[in-house]
């Protein structure tokens, strides 16, 4: 059939690398490389101490092994924990001074850094490997008092905020990968929205893994102060590459009274080839705390890439009347594995949470929804609604649902629903009859299946995400 054709045409669209000389930390995970990172980042002593504390804790931790996707043992001593484009040591003052090769890479990725700057209306904090190169729209944001910069800059410029919130949602001692990140994180974004400010634009960062053998350890911290609102976009593409790459990011969100944070992700990292060789290990810890009354955190994710996706964006609903939402599409094809879901921990009164998860599995892939809804004794009148649907294509893939539901008081209501099925033959037939070929029909039906989640994405992402859904599944039916 024409499948083979499609496969060769549609192989990883963003697979390219750029040759730039790298400054690297000494190989291996030890105090020296941590000190090196801290020095390169010109960090104050408290930050280094914090990292070393995490490193000491890490020595006593073991990698978790309860997850469904298994992976070959990672040799942490064989990785570089820091690599930066060489030109970073004397940072360019304007875009013209930026390494033209970098600009070229961004152009391929479609990041609007130069003339598209105004048109797109998106402020971009582009991370090439581990160092932020240019941040646009800073002036406009600064006018409103919004801080949007790299975490390294925030550590230097806004230590009081970083000290107060860093590690307050994901503590140093949390689990293996989160602790590893705390010890060696290199870059990431920092956002602070002052009280009663509605961020005028979608904030966005493109992460890009480039230097071979470098795991990326990003750290993102977003704080929405009282009565503020922010929408943050995270999108990822990575070049094609053979060896497995580890990515262990930490994302912390803090929403104070009446604040709202919307965090959207489109993840399209290199998933490995058709035979499951290569691909990114995406082991991310994402957690948000609704600290204040009436606060809201909403996670939306479209996960189509990575060899292994392993993450559970969570909400800790501490404030009374706070709201947590989780919308997810996870598509796995070929040999990809995804183990993803959410945790909704209800602590405050009248807290609400909603979980919509759509899993699509094709080829020899495995797709797991794993989630926790925990309603505490004091979380009176709380409410949760969960819906997990899985779609299977072929009998070599797997779809799994592992929800944990705990309800500890009688005034709260929890509802959970899950279904598993395949694409309805009649629907396919109907589409074929109307002149759509098999691929188009599948894409259409799957997009319909995912609609509830796609609707949650901001405009900038929605279009890309819809295309991605189709592309990710090409070659899986026929």
């Amino acid at each position, binding site marked *: 059939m024409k499948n083979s054709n499609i496969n060769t045409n549609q192989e990883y669209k963003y697979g390219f690398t750029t040759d730039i000389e790298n400054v690297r930390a000494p190989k291996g995970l030890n105090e020296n490389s941590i000190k090196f990172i801290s020095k390169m980042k010109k960090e104050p002593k408290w930050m280094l101490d914090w990292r070393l504390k995490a490193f000491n804790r890490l020595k006593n931790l073991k990698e978790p092994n309860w997850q469904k996707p298994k992976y070959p043992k990672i040799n942490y001593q064989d990785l570089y924990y820091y690599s930066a484009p060489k030109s970073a040591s004397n940072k360019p003052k304007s875009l013209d001074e930026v390494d033209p090769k970098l600009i070229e890479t961004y152009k391929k990725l479609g990041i609007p850094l130069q003339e598209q700057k105004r048109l797109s209306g998106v402020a971009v904090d582009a991370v090439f490997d581990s160092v932020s190169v240019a941040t646009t729209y800073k002036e406009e944001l600064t006018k409103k008092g919004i801080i949007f910069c790299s975490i390294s800059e925030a550590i230097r410029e806004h230590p009081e905020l970083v000290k107060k919130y860093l590690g307050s949602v994901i503590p140093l001692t949390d689990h293996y990968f989160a602790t590893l990140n705390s010890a060696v994180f290199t870059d990431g974004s920092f956002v602070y929205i002052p009280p009663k400010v509605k961020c005028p634009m979608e904030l966005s960062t493109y992460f890009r893994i480039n230097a071979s053998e470098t795991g990326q350890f990003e750290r993102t911290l977003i704080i929405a102060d009282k009565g503020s609102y922010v929408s943050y976009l995270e999108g990822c593409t990575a070049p094609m590459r053979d060896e497995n790459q580890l990515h262990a990011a930490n994302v912390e969100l803090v929403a104070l009274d009446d604040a709202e944070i919307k965090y959207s992700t489109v993840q399209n990292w290199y998933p490995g080839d058709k035979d499951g060789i290569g691909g990114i290990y995406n082991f991310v810890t994402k957690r948000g705390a609704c600290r204040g009354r009436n606060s809201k955190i909403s996670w939306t994710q479209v996960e189509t890439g990575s060899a292994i996706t392993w993450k559970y964006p969570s909400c800790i609903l501490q404030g009374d009347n706070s709201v947590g939402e989780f919308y997810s599409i996870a598509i796995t094809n070929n040999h990809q594995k995804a183990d993803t879901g959410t945790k909704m921990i209800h602590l405050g009164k009248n807290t609400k949470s909603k979980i919509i998860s759509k899993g699509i599995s094709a080829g020899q892939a495995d797709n797991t929804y794993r989630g926790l809804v925990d309603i505490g004794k004091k979380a009176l009148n709380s409410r949760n609604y969960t819906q997990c649907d899985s779609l*299977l294509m072929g*009998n070599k*893939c797997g779809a*799994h649902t*592992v929800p*944990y539901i705990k*309800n500890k*008081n*009688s005034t709260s209501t929890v509802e959970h629903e899950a279904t*598993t099925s395949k694409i309805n033959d009649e629907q396919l037939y109907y589409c074929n009859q109307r002149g759509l070929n098999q691929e188009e029909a599948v894409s259409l039906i799957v997009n319909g299946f995912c609609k509830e989640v796609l609707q949650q994405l901001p405009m900038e992402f929605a279009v890309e995400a819809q295309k991605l859904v189709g592309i990710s599944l090409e070659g899986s039916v026929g």
Partner: protein
Amino acid sequence: MIENFKISLKEIDKINLINQEDKNYRIENLEFFNKKGFPTKKEEDWKFSDLREIFSKNFKKIDINDAYPEENNFRLIQEFDHNYILLINGRLIRSDFKFEDKNKIKITGYKEENFLREKSNNPLICLNNALSNEGYNLVVEKDYKFEKVLVIYNLFNEDLSEKILNNKNKIIVNKNSELHTIEYTINRSKNKFFNNTYENVILYENAKFKNICIQAGRSEGYFHKFLNGSIKSDSKYSSFIFSSGLKFNKQDIQIDLEGKNSDCEIKSALFLNKEDHQEIKTIVNHLVPNCKSFQKIKSVLDSNAKGVYQGKIFVKDIAQKTNAYQLSKALLISENSEFDSKPELEIYADDVKCSHGSTSGNVDENSVHYLMTRGLTKKEATQLLINGFLKEIISEIKSDTIKKFVENKLEFQVYGY
């Protein structure tokens, strides 16, 4: 704390063993249990029921039961005609199959050779493997349908205090046969004890087995039962669990659908109060195409009670056309009650219909209000709603007399709260 619950290897010497191999197997299992101790919430299967904590709180020590007294004041159920077997502390005392063709039924006490020497990671199964020496073995020959229901009186006598009982039972229903049992547990002990049962059910082609599990009254007993069912083609397994009234109960049911067109149903209605803690855990393995499974678990939880349902549906890649459904519903009627569930799907075949639902919450306020406008007090209204909620399960029992019998037991519990 674990030290208190270690069991001496000498206990194994007390069992009349058949050969050295069996003995070694038992020693191996007991050593495993002594090393592990009672399971804690760190183990996935015991996440919601930390048995070690429960035991540490309620037991000071635990000894092996070795008393099997004669029965006294034992009365049969009068409501309907039935065959019966009587177990006292797990030991088979006598049986009566007066309504049946006796050539078609074989009943014996515990026999070592009836069970395979399987390895297990579950400390309680290991404990059972190490120490079980009582139980029964029931075989229904092929092409025989039971005329009347078989009641299994499971009686625990007064002297049990901080004792542990380990039993192993086996039920085989051969080709084209049918068996309907009621497991009726009578507790006379006012003290705490622990009953640990392993049961093996095998249904051959086109066999039917229906079981109802019910308590005579409240009990201080702690129960754990592991049931392993193997279901061949065209056969049907169905189980009703009405085990309200136990301090602690965990039913760990694993059903393997091994033959095409086989069918498995597990239904439960529980009313828990006074710090009761009950867990139902089911694993249904769909190993071949065209099988059906259905689980429906309804629980009502009052003062400090905790209910747990862990259900898993596994569908192997070749098991196309599987139809599996799972539903758990819980009503929490007291502030301090808790319901935890983990409805799990693990699916490797695409042409299947699998779904689950799980809900927990309080009685619907609008319904209570409606009933109150019709003159009922709040308590009466709640009782009526609870009763209706649980009766849905009971209404699926076919025999009217048995249905009535079960209903009465349940109403007694609901209206007594």
